[in-house]
């Protein structure tokens, strides 16, 4: 299992795709932080910066790369089918369950690593700026710590979900397209305009876990439980699907 995870990490390190996506994920962070601080307290923006909610809004920028992590997860799995490398992968280790488990672990690890870097970047941009506005931020207080931890958990789980999606939708372009459409359009609309449905979607659960303060979302712990459940469901479904599939 350790060898398989190391092999998956080596696969990511030996093409340019993963580097590009990781950089993109990190590039989103300062943009999100700046956006959150500039718009805070204004109409259409988040709550005022002086409030706990406002600080949480800024800190949740740390998970702005979540969608990119989802895509990395999809590529880790669907990319094997796209390029046909799945054949040699399964020839080396015919136990497919272990291969998929290694991919899920790898994707989650990558998600966690990007999330850690994102959190550090969020603090690096937000703290000095907020200090100039004389807004005191308690880094170890629950407003900051919980939100950053929630973001790290979200992106870790998104990595696992991505592998599940990539297993269920084998066509890489279709998998990425459907995932983007779902997250950016369908879920956004549901969360924005139909809370009672939107809060139960993966994105709704993830947003709650990220500590985003918005009407209609589940409480943070509820989001955590639900999103973990989604992660497990996608991982199990993807694995089961891959076990029986003909590789031709």
């Amino acid at each position, binding site marked *: 299992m350790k060898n398989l995870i190391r092999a998956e990490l080596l696969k990511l390190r030996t093409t340019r795709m993963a580097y590009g996506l990781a950089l993109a994920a990190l590039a989103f962070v300062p943009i999100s932080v700046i956006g959150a601080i500039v718009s805070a307290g204004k109409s259409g923006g988040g709550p005022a910066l002086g409030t706990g909610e406002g600080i949480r809004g800024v800190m949740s920028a740390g998970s702005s790369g979540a969608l990119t992590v989802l895509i990395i997860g999809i590529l880790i799995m669907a990319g094997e089918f796209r390029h046909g490398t799945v054949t040699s992968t399964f*020839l080396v280790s015919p136990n497919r369950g272990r291969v998929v488990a290694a991919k899920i672990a790898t994707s989650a690890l990558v998600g966690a690593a990007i999330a850690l870097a994102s959190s550090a970047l969020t603090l690096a941009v937000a703290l000095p700026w907020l200090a100039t506005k004389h807004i005191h931020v308690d880094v170890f207080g629950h407003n900051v710590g919980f939100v950053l931890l929630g973001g790290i958990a979200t992106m870790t789980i998104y990595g696992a979900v991505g592998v599940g999606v990539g297993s269920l939708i084998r066509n890489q372009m279709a998998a990425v397209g459907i995932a983007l459409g779902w997250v950016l359009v369908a879920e956004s609309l549901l969360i924005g305009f139909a809370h009672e449905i939107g809060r139960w979607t993966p994105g709704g659960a993830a947003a709650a876990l990220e500590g985003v303060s918005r009407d209609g979302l589940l409480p943070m712990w509820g989001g955590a439980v639900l999103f973990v459940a989604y992660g497990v469901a996608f991982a199990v479904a993807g694995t089961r699907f891959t076990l029986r599939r*003909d590789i031709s």
Partner: protein
Amino acid sequence: MTSIQINGLTKRFGTVVAVDNLSFEVAEGSITGFLGPNGAGKTTTLRMLLGLIEPTAGSSTIAGRPYRELVDPFHQVGAVLESTSFHPGRRARDHLRVLCTAAGLPPTRADEVLHEVGLADVGDRRVKGFSLGMRQRLGLAAALLGEPELLILDEPANGLDPEGVHWLRNFLRGYADRGRSVLVSSHLLAEIAQTVDDVVIVAKGRLVTQSSLADLAGRKKPGVWVRTPQAEALRQALGAKGIAAEVQTPDTLVAFEATTEAVGIAAAGAGAVIFEMTTQHFDLEEFFLELTTPTLNPTTEGGSR
């Protein structure tokens, strides 16, 4: 001891029967050619053997076990299935290093096999710049990483230039000479006729014949082609001597399994004038076509379906 055993293997894709109750064996230490026209079910059979495709019925084993249950598959079997299964943006050496890592082999094996297949100079290049022949060699390099006892190659000569085919033949021969086994598929008998010891011939998913190449060649004796204005009279004279013959055009005839002497004697007896006479040499390729062409295929005539 048997290296590969295939028992009643069947695969249906919807209503299409790709492989139909196929059984054969591959002995250890031999090179076996797995032959059949395109679409005969060779690739599907090999993929079932390697645990990549689930058979509809039947089973297959390598060294007594299904591939998925092999203790150390990478050291037991090396397979080259198609020339396109590389990430185009990954360097050749990195592709091999990934497989080494997954199999728990030292990464230095990557350079060793690159050298073995003649790609040592291009290991640092990304695979997208590789020709089909280079991809075939890289695929072979990957199969060799674990120093397996058995090599399974699906149409390995595709995309190789004549020099590459020659190299591949020598390589496979050297491999088998060390007591290892090779199963190599091809749709061209001529391509591997010089290399293989045994042949397994399939058509339409079914076994046509399994034999040694020498036996296969021995099944068809040379015939004699004759040009004579009395073709029909000669055919009857040959028939009276127990030699089968066929009039092909009004003035040409082929006598099967005959010598020129026997035909000449029969012609003298029949008073036939011979304008031209020549021995038809056995053409393995033609025989292969005959075996795999549906109308002449003995197993499809009066088959069980």
